[in-house]
Every structure is written in structure tokens, then in C-alpha cells.
């Protein structure tokens, strides 16, 4: 009922947002713009690769997702709305099916000079997002917009203050907890005019007040705990503070942020629950304060760019309802500390950010040797605070550009990936995955419009599925067409991985992709036949394990 009532409110808002401004469309300066994204998946059951036992493969056969944004701006008013549709979609839960459609997001924004007011769905962040970030990750059907009101006020040209309050979006409904917060951000210039030191300090605070329902759920969970596991008291409110500053001096840039979270109940997967009958099980709700320290130091010249990052995270799981898991109800964002790889095999193992216990380091060096030859090297290392190694990556690539005729890239990646932790697989039969992945890419331009790009990668590993080879050829016929053929093959399969069912273990399977893209203006249509191996899919540091895919994907992307 509450959902229906909210939908009625949405329809009224729709009228306000679009019909009234439309009356003034004829006036100068009015602008309507938007974007469309749609995915249509045709699922083809394939028991050879494990694309089975999911409703879409077993009986539904088809699933679709769509997002249609419309925005209107006129003078001091901007308004927007987004229609979302999911039909037998596998985005929310890769092993399930979700159907729903309606108004996924809407807002109205007023620019009143020094004061800016936004009502409706709010996307924003404080600092780097450690205590608050509302954003959207469509590949994971993640959208934690805050539904409420935000006000920004410019105290001076260099200082501004903002405050917001609302409830977190939950698909077409909202979670019950109230989230509120604010920040003050500034800009200072010190030093001389010739050698200025620019500072961008800020301070933010966020608080969440639990709903009665969540509080009762926590009481119900915690009253089952006995002995040392027992939590005696809990609070309705939780507070997070963050102080941050960006310093720029010449070629140096330094960002530092320190965040604190007051004692709060959260699920600690590393804690152990002892039941009444003496049995134990991993994972327990605990009540602890948390903190994060993150810093990034950069140095950049024409020839060289160097970035070093360090992040320490302890007990910083912050959700709108502490009983939610996976990607649900997350209020904040912990910056990922590994390279965002793009090649098929170098991106196969990506670590999800750990919010309970993580110590992470990353170094990135970019250099131009000559005008034609450049390169980069990246090193990242992630462990738990207790010392268990989670992830290590060393990545180096060189890029050679020959006029505008051709471009070649070559490199190598070394990885260690703690599959037991990141994918929740049994420790005694799951070794850390150690990979060595050399890769090359070559782009040749036949004419100004026509080009061919080829990729070849080989991942050598004795763990998980074993070693892979990947090849891709992409023919570009600008401005409209692009054709792609690629394949991934389990060249040296791992015969000893007990995590793989015996019926699939050791099989040498070819995973092809064949497709084309047609672009016209700002419209892009793609059609692909895809077979894809099971793997971790990450977007912005948020990751999940997705099953194998087999079928046809049709996508439309359009902006107007």
C-alpha cells in the first residue's frame, strides 16, 4: 500500500516536474535533454559452462533492463526524471530474476544565487565519499540515491556549506532509516603569487537514525548471542565525521582524509558466533567504532607522473540498515586501491573493497620516454589488518605511437588474488590465484576512417580454472560501424580444482563473442552473441561473483 501511495505521489510530482515547465518551453533558454540505456538479454541454456539452474536459462529465456532519463532546465530551475524498467532481469541478483518498473528517480533543483536547493533524489558525496556518497552503478543495479532535500550555500567565493536529509532509495521504494549530514568546504591560497600553495580543506558529518523495524531486528538478533558474543546495548543513532584536505604546490598534490564512525552494530564476517548448543559458525554482529585513513600523494611533470596511495580501514561498514548484506543499503564509498584494468584477462580477478579490515597501498608511475614511447607501471598491495595477504598486483605496459598510422601496446601483469576471501570459497581447497598475464594490443589505421584493432592476452595460472588465452579483432568503419570477434579458451585447464563440479572440471571450453556496433549521431546500437565464463564483476570497487553467461545481448545507448 505504501508503495502504491508513493507511486501516486510520483505521478503528481511528474506533473509538477514536466507539465508545468513545458508550458514555458516556448521561452528562450529552456532546454530538455536526456539519455536512454537499454539492455535486452536472450538467454541460451548451456550446461557445459554452468549457464543453468537460473530462471532465465531454465524457463524465462529473455530479460530486459531500461533507464530513460529526461531533464529540463530553464533559468534557475532544473528538473529531472528517470523511468526504470526491469523484466526478468539478472542485474539485481545474478542467480535470480527481478521484475519491476516505474519512476526510479526524480528531482527538482533551484538556483537562487548563493543558495541552491534540490528536492527529490540526491546524488552527492562528502570528501572522497568515505562517510557519504550516493551514486549509481548500473552493471550491478546499484543506486543508493538519497530521497530528500539538499541545500548548498556559498558563504563566500571560496567557502560553501551544505546540508541534506532523506531516506535511501531502495529500487522503487525507500529504506526507512533517516540519513542526514552536511559539510563545509573551502579553498585557501597561501605562499607567494609565484609559488602559491593551494589548500582545499573540508569537514563533514553524517548521521543515520535507525528505523524502529531495523532496531527491533537487531534486538532480535543480538538477544540470541551468549557469553562473550553478547552485545548489551545498542543505539538508534550513528555518527560519522570526516576531515579532509587537498594541498597543491607546484607539481605536487597531496590529499588526506581521516574518518571516524561512532560505535555501531555491523556484521563482522571474521568474528565467530557460538550458539546455545556449543556449535560455532563464522560471522557475527558486533558493536564497535570504526575509522579510515586515506592519503594520496601525486607528482606530475610533462615527462613523469607519480601517485602513491595508502588506505587503512577498520570496522567501516556503514549501511542504512545494518542487517542488509552484499551491495544493499551501502551509504558510503571506500576508494578502491587497485588499478582499474580494462583488458579481458587482466581484469578477470578484481578485489572488492574490504570494509571491516583492510590495509592497502598503491603506487602508479607514468612516464614519457620519447614523444612516441610512453609507459606506466602500477603496483598495489592489499592485506587485512591482521596480516593476511588479500591481493597483490604488478602491472607494466609500454605504448608506442607511430604518427597517426598505428599504435602498439605491450605489457605484463603479475597477480596474487585471495579467492577464498573474495569469493567465499573453502580455504583448504582454494589456493591463492597466482597469475602472469602478458598482453599486446595493436591498432592500425588503414584510412582516417577505417581501422583494425587486435588484442592478444595469455594468463598463466595453475589455480582456479587454469590458464587462459584470449584474442580479439575489432574492425572500425567510422563513423557508423564497428565489428568485433573475440574468444577466450581454457588452454591449460586446472584438473585439481575441487570448486569446479566434476562434470565441468578440466573441460577445454571456447568462449566466443561475435558482435557489431552501429552508431549514428549520439545513438549507439550493439548486438553480440556472448559466452562468458563465471567471474567477479566489479564496478567502482564494488564487486560480486557472477555466473557464466550464454546468450545474445542487444544494447541501445542514446543521448539527446
Amino acid at each position, binding site marked *: 500500500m505504501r508503495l502504491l501511495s508513493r507511486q501516486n505521489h510520483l505521478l503528481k510530482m511528474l506533473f509538477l516536474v514536466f507539465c508545468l515547465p513545458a508550458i514555458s518551453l516556448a521561452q528562450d533558454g529552456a532546454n530538455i535533454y536526456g539519455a536512454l540505456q537499454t539492455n535486452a538479454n536472450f538467454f541460451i541454456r548451456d550446461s557445459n559452462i554452468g549457464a543453468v539452474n537460473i530462471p532465465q536459462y531454465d524457463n524465462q529465456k529473455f530479460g530486459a533492463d531500461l533507464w530513460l532519463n529526461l531533464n529540463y532546465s530553464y533559468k534557475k530551475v532544473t528538473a529531472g526524471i528517470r523511468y526504470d524498467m526491469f523484466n526478468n532481469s539478472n542485474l539485481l541478483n545474478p542467480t535470480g530474476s527481478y521484475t519491476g518498473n516505474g519512476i526510479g528517480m526524480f528531482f527538482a533543483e533551484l538556483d537562487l544565487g548563493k543558495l541552491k536547493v534540490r528536492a527529490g533524489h540526491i546524488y552527492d558525496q562528502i570528501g572522497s565519499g568515505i562517510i557519504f556518497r550516493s551514486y549509481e552503478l548500473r552493471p550491478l543495479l546499484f543506486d543508493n540515491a538519497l530521497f530528500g532535500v539538499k541545500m548548498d550555500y556559498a558563504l563566500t567565493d571560496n567557502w560553501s556549506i551544505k546540508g541534506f536529509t532523506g531516506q535511501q532509495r531502495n529500487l522503487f521504494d525507500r529504506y526507512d532509516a533517516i540519513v542526514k549530514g552536511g559539510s563545509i568546504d573551502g579553498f585557501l591560497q597561501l605562499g607567494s603569487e609565484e609559488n602559491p600553495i593551494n589548500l582545499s580543506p573540508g569537514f563533514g558529518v553524517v548521521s543515520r537514525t535507525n528505523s524502529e523495524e531495523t532496531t527491533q531486528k537487531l534486538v532480535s538478533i543480538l538477544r540470541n548471542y551468549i557469553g562473550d558474543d553478547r552485545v548489551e546495548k545498542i543505539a*538508534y543513532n550513528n555518527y560519522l565525521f570526516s576531515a579532509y584536505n587537498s594541498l597543491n604546490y607546484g607539481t605536487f598534490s597531496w590529499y588526506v582524509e581521516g574518518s571516524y564512525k561512532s560505535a555501531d552494530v555491523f556484521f563482522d564476517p571474521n568474528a565467530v558466533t557460538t550458539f546455545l548448543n556449543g556449535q560455532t*559458525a*563464522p*560471522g557475527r554482529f558486533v558493536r564497535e567504532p570504526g575509522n579510515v585513513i586515506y592519503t594520496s600523494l601525486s607528482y606530475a611533470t610533462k615527462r613523469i607522473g607519480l601517485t602513491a596511495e595508502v588506505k587503512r580501514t577498520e570496522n567501516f561498514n556503514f549501511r542504512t540498515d545494518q*542487517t542488509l548484506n552484499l551491495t544493499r543499503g551501502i551509504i558510503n564509498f571506500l576508494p578502491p586501491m587497485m588499478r582499474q584494468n580494462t583488458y579481458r584477462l587482466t581484469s578477470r580477478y578484481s578485489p572488492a573493497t574490504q570494509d571491516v579490515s583492510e590495509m592497502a597501498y598503491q603506487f602508479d608511475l607514468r612516464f614519457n620516454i620519447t614523444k612516441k614511447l610512453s609507459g606506466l607501471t602500477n603496483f598495489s598491495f592489499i592485506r587485512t589488518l591482521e596480516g593476511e595477504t588479500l591481493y597483490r598486483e604488478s602491472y607494466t605496459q609500454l605504448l608506442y605511437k607511430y604518427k597517426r598510422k598505428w599504435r602498439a601496446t605491450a605489457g605484463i601483469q603479475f597477480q596474487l588474488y585471495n579467492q*577464498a576471501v573474495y569469493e567465499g570459497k573453502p580455504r583448504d*581447497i582454494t589456493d591463492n590465484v597466482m597469475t602472469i598475464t602478458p598482453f599486446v594490443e595493436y591498432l592500425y589505421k588503414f584510412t582516417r576512417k577505417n581501422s583494425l584493432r587486435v588484442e592478444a592476452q595469455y594468463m598463466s595460472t595453475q589455480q582456479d580454472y587454469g590458464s587462459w588465452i584470449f584474442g580479439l579483432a575489432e574492425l572500425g568503419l567510422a563513423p557508423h560501424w564497428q565489428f568485433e570477434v573475440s574468444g577466450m579458451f581454457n588452454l591449460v585447464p586446472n584438473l585439481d580444482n575441487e570448486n569446479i563440479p566434476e562434470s565441468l572440471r578440466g573441460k577445454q571450453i571456447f568462449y566466443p563473442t561475435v558482435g557489431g556496433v552501429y552508431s549514428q549521431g549520439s545513438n549507439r546500437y550493439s548486438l553480440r552473441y556472448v559466452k562468458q565464463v563465471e567471474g567477479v564483476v566489479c564496478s567502482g570497487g564494488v564487486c560480486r561473483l557472477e555466473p557464466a553467461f550464454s546468450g545474445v545481448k542487444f544494447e541501445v545507448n542514446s543521448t539527446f
Partner: protein
Amino acid sequence: MMKHSIFITCILSILLLSACKEELIMIPEFEVPPGDRKVLLEELTGVRCPNCPAGAAQVKSLQDSYGDRLIAVGIHGGFLTIPLSESKYDFQNDYARELESFLEVGPKPAAALNRVQHIEEEFSISTPSLWSQYIDEELKKENEMNIILTTEYNPDNRELDIIVSVVPLRDFSQDENLRISLMLTQNHIEDAQEDPNEVLEDYVHNHVLRTMLTEAKGDIIQKDLTENVAENFNFSFTLPKDEDLEEMEAPWVAEEVEVIAFVNVIEGSDKHIIQVEASHITD
């Protein structure tokens, strides 16, 4: 401006810190809500699910706490259920597969509690710590029906006769789409199971769904039910002998077999269970 900003920051911090003081909520001791209503916990599990032993431990703990008010069945329906190389038995069956799809399982371990959508329109809840909360919610609801189970097992010919007596505590019309479901489960089956650290070769699987004597979603009750008038449903089944077992089928041990009978509703997205009862087939 610097002074201005520091002043505002200080004011904000004082306001927030002063707001931090609140009355904390004391966590009470555990107690079972009074009443006659019972709850069916359908545990969606699998031998390849490393976190499922923790889920099973939670079920056992809950059964210890709630006693016979909580009845459990383990459904090995498809996801993470393909036997391990160490497995002697295959716990999958068509009923389990159909139920897993019917209950829209996500990550495992998960459990449906009286098939009520407790979280975000989902029937199966993937956080074992939450199960207790929803069991409480169900137990606090008004009881609308009693079920009396009578079983008679003949060890000589392994025939099992079951009478399910449904005693409504209010009138139910045929339009309410009631169904009767009957499951046979088995405890203490030793076989391999993954856990977060290793493959446990002699893990004890409890309340494994072996078969059903009705359709997976229940047989439709094609009549009105009258308050306090018992309606009997008869079932019979012969426990397969060891020599008649199919490949990788676990032996049927009568002493470990349990009958679970329940009355459920299927009407659109409403799939809730009205009442459930369980009984061993031997003394």
C-alpha cells in the same frame, strides 16, 4: 573568512556532539512468544555452499531455542548442489528444484520462513542472523489452524501410512486457494559438504528433503473448510529398500525419516503457510 568557517564548524560539531547523547536500548534475554502457531523454515542449501554449514548450525540453534514450534527442511534444489567428488549421495530431486525456483533463492544459505516475503519482496532470506526475527514475527501471528499428524509405519514391508487432520480455527472458503503439502525429510545422513575451510567428508546433513507426497507447491484443497471441523487427508508411501535405490541415492533409514505436513496458500505473489506440523515415523 577563516574565522567565520572555524566558528561555523565549531557550532556544527557542538550541536552534533550534544545530539550524540541518547538512551541506549538494552538487549533483552531470549524468550519464545506464546501461542500455538508453528513456523516452517525451508533452508535453501547445497553441498557446494561453503557458508551453508554455518546456516545449518544456526537452524540447529534456533530449533534448540524454539523447540517444536520451529520445523526445518533442507532443500538442495540446484544452485551449489552438484555432488562433490567426495560425495556418496546426490541430495537433489525434482521437488527441491521446483521449490528452490518457487522460493526465488538468491545467495545461499538462505531460508524461507512460512514463505512470507520479509525483505524487499523476497521469500528467501540470505542472512541467517535474521531468521530469528522473522520466526518471532510468524509465531506472534494469530493461529488459524491446527494440524494433527498420525503416522503408521510397517517395518516389514516398509509401508508408511499418513493421516493429516486439518482443524480450522475459522471458516476457510475454497476461494482462498488453500493447498496441502506433505514432505518426507531425513536426518543424520553423513556425506561430504564444503565449508569455508575445507571439504567435510563426514558432515551430518539433517532434515534433507527426500521426496513429497503432494505436488511441490501442494495439492489444491477443493472444498470449503469449516471452523473446528476436522478434514482428513490420507497418504501412503513405501520406503525404498537399499537394493532398489537409484545411483547416488541415499539409503532410507526409517528411524531418521520425518513427515512434515502444512497448509499453504498460493494466490498471486502470496505464498504463505498457515500452519505446519511434523512427526517422526517411528517411536
